[in-house]
């Protein structure tokens, strides 16, 4: 378990991004959604996103509900807080199969994971750990001050809990 801490608490909703210079315990719940946790070991701070779909295709708002926007904005937020992108390390979680679909191309979870891997590779940010896929939901607690992530697998199938 995480050590007792005086870090602030934050609940991250789907489509949200959180990054702070102060240590926070960020909780989020993932089904087919993916969270990328970025951590800067030099400044000892980090940030996390929670996206639902891989690509924004011009529909609705250009929000971090979409992976390509969520990852770019998370990197930008950490850079605005003073991080050098070369110091960033990534941990990737989620992307479970929560809805049974016959067509593998329609598996949102897999496509969300693939997107994180592709974009982080393009950005030269190494993924140092990951717990993705499967038919489970996940509850994450990310300590932005230490980079520690606690993952609890939720054995029953869940939809992404938004709130």
């Amino acid at each position: 378990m995480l050590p007792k801490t005086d870090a602030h608490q934050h609940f991250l909703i789907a489509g949200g991004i959180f990054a702070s210079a102060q240590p926070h315990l960020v909780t989020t719940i993932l089904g087919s959604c993916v969270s990328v946790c970025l951590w800067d070991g030099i400044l000892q701070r980090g940030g996390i996103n929670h996206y639902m779909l891989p690509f924004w295709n011009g529909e609705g708002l250009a929000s971090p509900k979409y992976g390509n926007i969520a990852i770019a904005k998370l990197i930008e937020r950490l850079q605005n807080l003073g991080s050098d992108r070369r110091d960033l390390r990534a941990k990737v979680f989620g992307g479970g199969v929560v809805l049974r679909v016959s067509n593998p191309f329609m598996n949102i979870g897999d496509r969300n994971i693939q997107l994180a891997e592709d974009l982080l590779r393009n950005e030269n940010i190494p993924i140092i750990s990951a717990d993705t896929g499967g038919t489970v939901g996940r509850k994450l607690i990310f300590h932005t001050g230490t980079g520690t992530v606690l993952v609890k697998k939720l054995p029953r199938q869940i939809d992404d809990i938004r709130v």
Partner: protein
Amino acid sequence: MDRFNDETLPADLQRRLEEGRIAVDNLRTMTVNLEQVNEKLRLSEEMRSNFLSNIRNEMNNPLAAILGLARQIADRKVDAETAGTMAGTVYREAFDLDFQLRNIFAAAELEAGEVSFSIARLDVAALLRQLVADFSHRAEEKRVALQVDAGAPDGGQLLFTTDPEKLKIVLANLLANAVEFTKEGTRASVHVRRDGGTLTIAVADQGPGIPPADRKKVFDRFVQLDTGARKRHRGHGLGLSIAKAYAEMLGGSMALSSEEGRGCVFTLSVAELLSAGSVDASSSDGNEFIFEPGTGS
């Protein structure tokens, strides 16, 4: 490895050729789709830069009116009755500015991923009565009758647990659009229904309606169906994109039905929310994993 004879070889080649043809076909379809998405993204970028150049006029004109009128009232250059009329205009211009700014802030917050929720029990009937009062001056200008069936008897309550601020922004935008687009001298109406844990609010206008091809597009950011020199309606084309995003975040949806020439009905459905703290995410037999901080590998 498969062995082929004179009979099976041509059949196998035929099959492979066919597979190749299908693969090329799929690639073509994918390329066309990608080109369409690309075009859509380009348009979205273009609208974003148009927005930035339009915003100056949209903000400056009402602000100039407010400053000018307020100055005259403050200098006591006008009699009490004129001052009263002027103050009414100042209020309406300020109301519009405030409404537009709130939308811009909401869109910025959504696009930055900085939305947070504050769940509370809310009287939906009272909220609607308040919103109708807020928009009554706009309705009066257009001689539009605003009808509300608040799902509760006169003065009664309709309690529902959700994020009150977000619901208010969604409804304000639907109401503002209905008044804006309904024809002069007609009516706009709001119907509220509660069905178990689901709240459904339908906002109808008697405007020109929206052709089927544009029904999805109206929820995209910066999209206004009358643009350029013909543009007659105020706003930035953000309202419906915000309303839809919030509706989905509140665990609901936004639907549009329309009959051309007869008007539109926007229907918001949201599920009653639990408070954030009560989300049941614990499990007695779940696994726990701890990933120690990276070593920079």
